[in-house]
C-alpha cells in the first residue's frame, strides 16, 4: 500500500534509519541515519575501512531494507516498491567497487544486458544501442573482450557504462577511485563532474551522485556535500569548508590517507 508523498522532490530521504550488514542483515552497522539527498547533489560519503559505507550504498540502492526507520527513495517508501514500480526503481543504479562484471559475457554483452532485459532486445539491437556509450567511455576497443582479460581500471569503467545504459537519475558509486592509476582517477573525477552538471549524452540532465571514499583529498573540487561514517553514526560534514573545519580526528586521517586505500 503506498503512503502519501510529502517530499516528492527529494531523491533520498532517510529518517532514523538503521542499516544492517549485507552479510548478516540482522547485525546493525549504522544507526540513526538521517540523510537527505536533493536532485543534483554530489555526495561524498567517507569513512575508515569497515565503517559501513558499502552497506549504506546497498541500502540506498534498495538491495536490502532498513532494520528500522523510514527510507524514501524519490519520495516513495522503499517498502512499497514492487514489480509495478520497476521503472522508478531503475532510476537508481549502484556501481560496485570491483565492477563485478559477469564473467561469461563479453564487455559489450555485460553493458547491453540491462537494456536487453528491460526492453526485450536481441543482442544485435542492444549492441547498436550501446555503441555511443562505449565510445563515450573509450570502451570500444574492449567491446568483445572477456572481463577476465581487462585490468581493474577498465573493468570499473565498464561497470560504470553498464550502470549508465539505463540512464539513471541517481548514481551510486562504491569507492570509484580505489585501485585506479592516476590517469583513470583523473578521468573518473572529470566524468563524474560532467554527469553531475549534465552531460550531453544524457540530454544535459544533471545526475544525482553519491560516492563512497576512503580518502577525502581527491574530492575537494568535486563533491558538493560530504559526510563521515564513524562509530556506527552518519555524520554530515556539509561542504568542503565543513570538512576542513572539522576537528574530528577521523576526518584528519581520511584527508591524509593513501589514495589506494579501500574498505
Amino acid at each position, binding site marked *: 500500500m503506498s503512503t502519501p508523498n510529502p517530499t516528492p522532490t527529494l531523491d533520498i530521504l532517510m529518517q532514523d534509519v538503521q542499516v544492517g550488514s549485507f552479510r548478516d*542483515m540482522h547485525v546493525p552497522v549504522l544507526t540513526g541515519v538521517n540523510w537527505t539527498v536533493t536532485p543534483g547533489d554530489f555526495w561524498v560519503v567517507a569513512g575508515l575501512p569497515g565503517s559501513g559505507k558499502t552497506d549504506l550504498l546497498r541500502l540506498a540502492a534498495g538491495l536490502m531494507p532498513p532494520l528500522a526507520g523510514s527510507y524514501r527513495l524519490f519520495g516513495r517508501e522503499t517498502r512499497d*516498491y514492487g514489480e509495478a514500480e520497476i521503472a522508478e526503481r531503475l532510476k537508481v543504479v*549502484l556501481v*560496485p567497487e570491483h565492477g*563485478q562484471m559477469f564473467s561469461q559475457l563479453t564487455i559489450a554483452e555485460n553493458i547491453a544486458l540491462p537494456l*536487453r*532485459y528491460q526492453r526485450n*532486445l536481441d543482442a544485435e539491437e542492444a549492441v547498436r544501442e550501446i555503441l555511443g556509450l562505449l565510445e563515450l567511455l573509450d570502451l570500444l576497443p574492449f567491446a568483445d573482450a572477456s572481463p577476465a582479460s581487462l585490468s581493474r581500471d577498465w573493468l570499473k569503467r565498464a561497470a560504470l557504462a553498464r550502470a549508465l545504459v539505463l540512464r539513471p537519475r541517481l548514481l551510486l558509486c562504491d569507492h570509484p577511485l580505489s585501485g585506479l592509476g592516476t590517469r583513470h582517477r583523473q578521468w573518473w573525477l572529470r566524468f563524474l563532474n560532467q554527469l553531475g552538471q549534465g552531460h550531453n549524452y544524457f540530454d544535459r540532465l544533471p545526475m544525482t551522485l553519491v560516492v563512497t571514499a576512503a580518502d577525502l583529498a581527491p574530492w575537494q573540487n568535486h563533491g558538493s556535500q560530504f559526510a563521515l561514517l564513524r562509530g556506527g553514526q552518519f555524520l554530515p560534514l556539509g561542504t568542503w569548508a565543513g570538512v576542513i573545519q572539522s576537528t574530528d580526528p577521523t576526518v584528519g586521517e581520511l584527508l591524509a590517507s593513501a589514495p589506494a586505500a579501500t574498505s
Partner: protein
Amino acid sequence: MQKGLAKIFKHANVDFLRSIPQPKSFTDILGRKLFLFLLSLQGIGAFALITLGVMLRKRRVAVKVMHPRIREEIRRSGVALLPMFFLMAMGLGFLVVGQTVAALAKVGAINYLGSTMVIVVVRELGPLLTAMLLLARVGTAHVIELGTARALGEVEVLETLGIDPVHYLIVPRVIGMMAGMFSLAVYLIIGSLLAGYLCAFIQDVPLTPGDYFKELASALTGLDFVMLGLKTVIFGFCIAMVACYHGLAQPLRLEDVSRVAIRAVTQGVVVCVLVDLAFIVIYTLA
C-alpha cells in the same frame, strides 16, 4: 525492491545453528543433523515456491534474453551429456541387464524378464542413476557457479540493474535440468535395454530380439510411462532446486562455496531417494 533475495534470506539463514558446538551424544548429533536437514528442506520448499511463482509470472518477460539462456541450459544439462550417458547405458546394459537376462534364462524364468526389467530399469535404476549423474555433473556446477557469483557480488548487481536473479539465473537452470533429466533417463533406459540384449546375445542366451522386446513391451503399462515422465521431471526440479538454493539463497564467501557444494550434493541425494520412496508408495497404491 527488497523482495527478491531478501525474501529468500529469511528461509536460508541457519548458519547460526550450524555454529553451535556439536553435542556429545550420538543421538543428539543425529537429532541436530535431522533438525538442520528439515530446516534446509523448509528453505528449499520456500525457494521452490518462489521459483515456480517467477516461472509463471515472468514467462513473457525478456524472452529474447531468456530463450537463448534456456536453450543453452538444455544443451548443457542434456545434449552435452549424451556421450557420458551412452557409456553409462552400455555399462548398465552389460553389468545389470545382460547378466539378469542370462541368469533368468539359466533358471528357466525368462517369463519374468519383462516385469523384472521394467521394475529394475524403467522404474528405478534408469531415473535414479540419471538423477545421480546429473546431480554430480550439472548440479555441482550450478552450486559452484551460483555460489561464486553470489560471493563476488554479481547477484546483487543483477538486482540493482532491475534483473530478477531468480528469473535470470534459476529459471533457465530449472527448465534445462527438467528437460535434460527426462530425455537422458529415456536414452539411458533404451540404451541399457539394447546393450542388455547385446550382452545376452554374446552369452548365447536362447532369446530372439523379437521375444526379448515382446517381453518388455508386455510388461510395460501406461502408468509406467506416466510415472517415468513425472518422476524424471520431479527429480530434475528437485536437483535444480537443491543446487540453486545452496548456491544462491544465502550470503556466501568464496571459501564457503566448496562446503556448500558438498552439502548440496548430500541433500540432493537424500531428496531424490525420498522422492523415489514416495513414488514406490504411489506404485504400490496404484
